[in-house]
């Protein structure tokens, strides 16, 4: 799918390539020790999850209706959130990468804000915008008697808010890295911008779009702070997996561990599917 002669980044060509492989015996301890500490710190909590897991009752706990409800809700909402992010985010990424308009830099910065702000703050912001007394929400409520908070719609909204930027940024990166000559060639042959986008640009950046979508889905699945603030916690309606973990931790830690294991398994599947793309040589 990708062009055969990709444009290299300037720094890729200016940096001298040095294929000097460091032999194990030559690794300086001053690097080795902190690296080991880092690895241990990242791996031990996961080991803790596995060691303390109630393996004997794992099956029965997984079949508990609350667990099933939370899992189905999480998978469903994260998928819908990803589809919405694709429908809105890919055009937005194209706009940021392929057009110039006044204030584009600021739009780009604003789009990435949800990535770096604490999710809880995102939830508060959503509540103040779309809540029953929110800037937009009050009119929804006045005119239609409809309120978003504490509904499954609110869960999806929270997920789109925190996860869409990941998709936008990775698609934009793919667009910037793609070879423009194909699009230019299509343009000289008389194709309109829409046709070029559909027939040339999109197929070229499809791997980037796919990777962005997976990242977005994973982030949506793990969403906690914005969800609990904006959507609340009601089993079957707004109680997603992370919230179920949090609530279970207060009454039934064993169930919380089981739920965490499920989420961990999902994360590992995502990681393996992305491995080729970003973390080659794992």
């Amino acid at each position, binding site marked *: 799918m990708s062009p055969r002669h990709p444009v290299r980044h300037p720094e890729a060509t200016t940096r001298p390539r040095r294929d000097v492989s460091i032999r194990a015996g030559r690794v300086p301890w001053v690097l080795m020790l902190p690296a080991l500490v880092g690895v241990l710190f990242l791996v031990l909590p996961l080991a803790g999850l596995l060691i303390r897991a109630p393996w004997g009752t794992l099956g029965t706990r997984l079949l508990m209706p609350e667990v099933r409800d939370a899992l189905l809700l999480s998978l469903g909402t994260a998928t819908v959130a990803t589809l919405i992010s694709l429908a809105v985010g890919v055009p937005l990424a194209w706009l940021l990468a392929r057009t110039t308009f006044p204030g584009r830099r600021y739009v780009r910065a604003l789009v990435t804000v949800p*990535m*770096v702000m604490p999710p809880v703050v995102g939830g508060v912001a959503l509540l103040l915008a779309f809540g*029953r007394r929110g800037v937009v929400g009050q009119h929804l409520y006045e005119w239609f008697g409809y309120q978003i908070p504490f509904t499954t719609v609110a869960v999806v909204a929270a997920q789109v808010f925190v996860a869409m930027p990941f998709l936008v940024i990775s698609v934009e990166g793919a667009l910037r890295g793609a070879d423009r000559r194909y699009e230019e060639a299509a343009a000289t042959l008389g194709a309109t911008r829409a046709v070029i986008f559909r027939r040339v640009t999109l197929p070229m950046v499809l791997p980037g779009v796919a990777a962005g979508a997976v990242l977005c889905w994973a982030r949506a699945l793990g969403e*906690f702070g914005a969800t609990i603030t904006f959507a609340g916690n*009601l089993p079957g309606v707004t109680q997603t997996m992370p919230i179920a973990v949090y609530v279970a931790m207060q009454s039934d830690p064993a169930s919380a561990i089981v739920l965490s294991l499920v989420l961990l398994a999902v994360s590992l599947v995502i990681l393996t599917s992305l491995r080729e793309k970003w973390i080659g040589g794992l």
Partner: protein
Amino acid sequence: MPDPTPRRPFPLSVTLAAVPVAVAVLATAACGDVPGDDGGGDAEGGSGNLRVFAAASLTDVFGELGERFEEEHGVTVDLNFAGSSELAQQINEGAPADVFASANPANMDLVAEEGNVAGEETVFVENILEIAVPADNPAGVEELDDLAADDVVVALCSPEVPCGAASETVMEDSGVDIDPATLEEDVRAALTKVELGEVDAALVYRTDVMAAGESVVSIEFPEAEEAVNDYPIAVLTEAAEPDLAEEWVRLVTSDEGQAVLTDAGFRTP
């Protein structure tokens, strides 16, 4: 260079942006929300720090008592407020704490069962549920029965936390069946939804309504007497400062401490 992909998948900005994201994700995942767990900062080299783990509903009063205690004893008081069940978990997992004040006996029992309570536990105050509504009371709530109506949006506390357990008791005893829009993780979160006007009513403690100020009005209801919450306090076995911990319990149960507590809406047992 085994990497066959010449294109960098991410612009550098994303890589940079990913760092705070990762940190934020880690931070939120690691500690949920444990406010006031930052060690209090300026230790003045007194005889040590007193670490008090207290139910979220004690936030304001223990904050005030903490200041008095610091002046009196010349030590730093570190207050960790969260849901009682969460605190009980933390203590049983070995979190460093000298005193535990729980919003119900059940969570104190959890800590006692693990052998983490030293000596006696004392019930130092009681708390009672009230109905909190936004100042303009949009749903016209007057009594508990009104909360069962379909068009009234109600926030309850999650059954795992004391105010949620008390709410369940009230519903069972009164036969009023409330269908909540959300089960909030702690009493403050439920109250916040009322303050913002996102729900028509919530069942919360009287003390929380009193702390909320002008934007929330409280409605007393007789059924609440069925679910009065006892607040036990105890010195912990693993206390690094058992003497200071004893002093803290003494302050909380003294006339001075009780005056601060009743001002905030608690009842003397």
